[in-house]
């Protein structure tokens, strides 16, 4: 009693570039975020294609040819795999953002997530049909 108490809180810094190695759940989060970079690169590639298309048939042909290079094919498979991973992770957490309440009951997560998958498949079929694949 009567002793002077001194407050000197100790602050532990979070390492700004390596924090996500601390926990598997942080790594899973980073995997979701990093895979979106490939979607970004693919979108840029699509814009390049549009620019080549507007520049005339010769430019377009050489663009299509460059897409057939092995490195380009590998990139497209990688981008497809990462885009699927990114989409699955987001669809699976969609029920958190969009809870559906009917009276006193919440719709099960599988209904909300499943709805996203159904719309995704239908849209994909529509686009493929529209593009003349079938």
């Amino acid at each position: 009693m009567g002793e002077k108490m001194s407050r000197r809180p100790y602050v532990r810094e979070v390492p700004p570039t390596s924090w996500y190695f601390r926990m598997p759940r942080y790594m899973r989060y980073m995997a979701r975020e990093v895979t979106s970079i490939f979607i970004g690169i693919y979108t840029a590639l699509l814009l390049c294609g549009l620019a080549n298309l507007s520049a005339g048939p010769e430019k377009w042909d050489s663009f299509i040819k460059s897409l057939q290079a092995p490195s380009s094919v590998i990139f497209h498979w990688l981008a497809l795999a990462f885009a699927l991973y990114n989409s699955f992770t987001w669809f699976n957490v969609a029920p958190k953002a969009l809870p559906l309440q009917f009276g006193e009951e919440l719709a099960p997560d599988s209904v909300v997530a499943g709805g996203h998958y159904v719309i995704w498949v239908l849209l994909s079929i529509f686009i493929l049909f529209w593009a003349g694949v079938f």
Partner: protein
Amino acid sequence: MTENRMGARQVELEVLRYNPETDQEPKFQRYSVPCINEWCVLDALNYLKDNLDPTLAYRWSCHMQVCGSCGMMINGEPKLACKAMLRDYPGTIRIEPLAHFPIERDLVSVADDFIAKLKRVKPYIISDGKHTIEQGEYKQTPAQLKRYRQFAMCINCMLCYAACPEYGLQPKFIGPAAISLAHRYNLDSRDVGRDERQEEIATNEGVWECTFVGACSDVCPKHVDPAAALQQVKVASTVDWYLEHFMSWVKK
């Protein structure tokens, strides 16, 4: 404590110690504590303080997952010490104060920042003043209760802040629990305070600092799902923006 009872064992604890009056930085101290396997980590700490080292400082009160005082990092994971059972930790148990908060002393963290943020989001019913006490209780249907009940389970234990890397990197972030509680009152049929709370939570320091890591919901001992609350606030705030800018004739 009887050593020969069924399920008794020595538990090795590594406890982060920090005395602000003498230490430059925290350091681990090892203890060997005689425990019963059915104990929780808080029981082990209580035995340790009562019998081995009375200088150890930590917070606790109810010992039944209600008060939210005994949050600490147990083997790197934010846990309530009263909910972490020794039988789930076969090896040495490493105990540290909650991550992302300054250490006051030993396992006691400084909660001032969280308390200030909690006040900012006005976590109480803001009524329109039309319902008087003489009219009796303010009735709610079970469906109206269901809308917010999950988010009302928060006990302010701050485990979600210790799990949230955004809060660790950007301490201005209002954070999971405070925003979940704001959302809880926004969803309450008796409340009219949403506009006031939006000023705090629909901001860069509010929900838009959240990148949906989801760790807050993983560690919540009361299954509040703060990550869900924050995403729902984002969706509602986005709808607000579109209504205001493109459909201003629609009344919110």
